[in-house]
């Protein structure tokens, strides 16, 4: 196996991935981020903390998640063999919970009894509310007022779990506005509050910390693939909104230079339509939500509204490490439209008996495009980051069906 000569050095000590990342926040938050960085570094060096994290992942989340060979679908596509990393089988139904456990444990260590989170479709909110209930912490979830309307079931789930859900009425009333509002809460209540960010974005150390907690996905794959497929994959494919499931599976593979890493963004109605959420494919570098990264913005530097059938990918930025992996060409980023993702959603339902999340369906759709172009001896590993039960309404509506 070809390994890089030097270990991957990112982020650097100041939280940068090349020109991306960093700490672009108001002065009020600087001490809180310093405190968080120090606490996280201490936990990383603490074997008891890491052992407890592993115990929780095993007994509460149900890890390791299996890898499944989608034999029938691969056969129908007539090319490369497709393997699925089954993050959809985790407790709460997605990869999000891995990170929430890590951050909630850290919050407890830091003596912060209150956790807050932002959520778009509600998945990260549900995962945070779940873990807060598990550890007996107060939990407040910020959610755009539009999303609260669209995702009533997830709002109820969070309430069942004891969380307070705050509808955000400002701006476009979606994920980015929920993030703004959560930041404001944090600035105001920083003495007793821990902000659990759900993706590999935000100011340093969040992109690094979330990546590290999610890297369990890729580490397991590296152990499981030789057993399942006889070797490591030729391609690792994952959807990218903020990019946490992708960073989680990519990161352990970065030094496996022969493995191609493909991030799949939401191309919505098509990259030319202007209605999409593909920051890396169609955006420009800028500063938002505490870090420098690729952003969907207009000529004046205002952030523009995004579109995707999948709420979890509907975000105008992307984690700064993805920006760096794109520029350095270690990973490649492609777009998949709403229509292509929906087709893959239906195909996986019908051919494998698995209902995937619409987010993950973007990665599946790219695998379905790529597989027929490759020989039957090639191996694709797709991160099936979540299950699709939450998307029933969206898919039914698209098919003209009302419950």
């Amino acid at each position: 196996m070809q390994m890089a000569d030097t270990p991957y050095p990112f982020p650097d000590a100041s939280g940068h991935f090349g020109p991306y990342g960093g700490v672009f926040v108001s002065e009020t938050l600087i001490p809180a981020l310093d405190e968080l960085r120090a606490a996280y570094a201490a936990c990383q060096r603490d074997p008891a903390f890491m052992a407890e994290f592993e115990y929780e992942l095993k007994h509460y989340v149900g890890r390791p998640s299996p890898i499944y060979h989608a034999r029938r679908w691969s056969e129908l596509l007539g090319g490369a063999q497709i393997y699925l990393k089954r993050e959809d089988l985790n407790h709460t139904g997605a990869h999000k919970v891995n990170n929430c456990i890590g951050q909630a444990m850290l919050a407890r260590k830091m003596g912060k009894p209150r956790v807050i989170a932002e959520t778009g479709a509600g998945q990260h909110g549900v995962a945070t509310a779940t873990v807060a209930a598990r550890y007996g912490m107060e939990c407040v979830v910020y959610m755009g007022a539009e999303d609260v309307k669209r995702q009533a079931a997830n709002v109820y789930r969070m309430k069942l779990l004891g969380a307070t859900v705050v509808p955000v009425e400002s701006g476009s009333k979606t994920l980015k506005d929920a993030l703004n509002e959560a930041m404001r809460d944090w600035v105001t209540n920083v003495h007793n509050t821990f902000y659990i960010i759900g993706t590999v974005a935000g100011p340093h150390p969040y992109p690094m910390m979330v990546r590290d907690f999610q890297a369990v996905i890729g580490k397991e794959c590296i152990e499981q693939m030789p057993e399942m497929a006889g070797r490591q994959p030729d391609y690792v494919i994952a959807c990218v909104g903020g990019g946490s499931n992708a960073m989680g599976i990519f990161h352990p593979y970065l030094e496996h230079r022969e493995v191609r890493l493909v991030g799949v963004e939401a191309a919505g109605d098509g990259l030319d339509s202007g209605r999409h959420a593909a920051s890396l494919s169609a955006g420009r570098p800028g500063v938002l939500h505490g870090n420098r990264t690729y952003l969907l913005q207009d000529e004046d530097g205002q952030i523009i509204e995004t579109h995707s059938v999948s709420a979890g990918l509907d975000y105008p930025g992307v984690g700064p490490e993805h920006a760096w992996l794109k520029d350095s060409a270690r990973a490649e980023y492609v777009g998949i439209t709403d229509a292509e993702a929906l087709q893959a959603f239906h195909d996986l339902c019908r051919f494998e008996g698995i209902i995937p999340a619409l987010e993950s369906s973007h990665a599946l759709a790219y695998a379905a495009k790529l597989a027929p172009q490759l020989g039957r001896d090639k191996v694709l590993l797709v991160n099936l980051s979540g299950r699709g039960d939450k998307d029933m309404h969206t898919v039914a509506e698209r098919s003209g069906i009302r419950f």
Partner: protein
Amino acid sequence: MSKIHTTFARLQGEGRKALIPFITAGDPDADTTVPLMHALVEGGADIIELGVPFSDPMADGPTIQRASERALAKGMSLRKVLALVAEFRRRDAATPVVLMGYANPIEAMGIDAFAGAAAAAGVDGVLVVDYPPQECAGFAATLKAAGLDPIFLLAPTSSAQRFAEVAQAGSGYIYYVSLKGVTGSANIDMDEVARRIPQIRAAVGMPVGVGFGIRDAASARRIGEVADGVVIGSRIIEEIENSPTDQVVVRVRDFIKGIRDALDQIGEQAR
């Protein structure tokens, strides 16, 4: 010497405090901004902080976010803000103008292009809320080379090491945010402010303006007793929101005049 520096020096000589109102450019509309700026000066403003609207004003409270949204809905942009400053300068060459906003519109324009255009328009200082000193050494140097003051924030949570970093990177004045929170919040901790301001002034060697949470003549006066300047933002935006269109300018001028009178009583008592 920058216009901001000489303004503070003059006020200090007179035993007076700087009154620094904030309005968002383009709120309620572009045509009202320059008349509002002149009205602020008539009412007794010493320096004007002019907000550059941004789609995601993370460090601001709901009041200033609403002002941003109104301005953006009517097509305000960084370039248009600079044009408004140039228009203001046709009648007022003396009052310093500080742009306050977020990094992304400036980066979209280009840092060099922005510094050149801002200096040409008659801007005196720039405060970028999401540019802490460690992330903007190049930007601060570019501003200084163009004759502009890079203004930085300090907070109740800031360490002594932060004082040193800000003293190194900044010039003009320090904007001390007097509470943990966003713009427009309540509850200023007066004892905290009174304790911190002398420490900060001594550490940074610059005048200290205090903002976030100042809402009326009484709170302005209490802050003015310890600080070199008083910043008022959200409360003015509320005045704009609550005034009939044809009375916005007059109402804002009268409101500022009330604050000015309260601040000037501090000096009179001392004399």
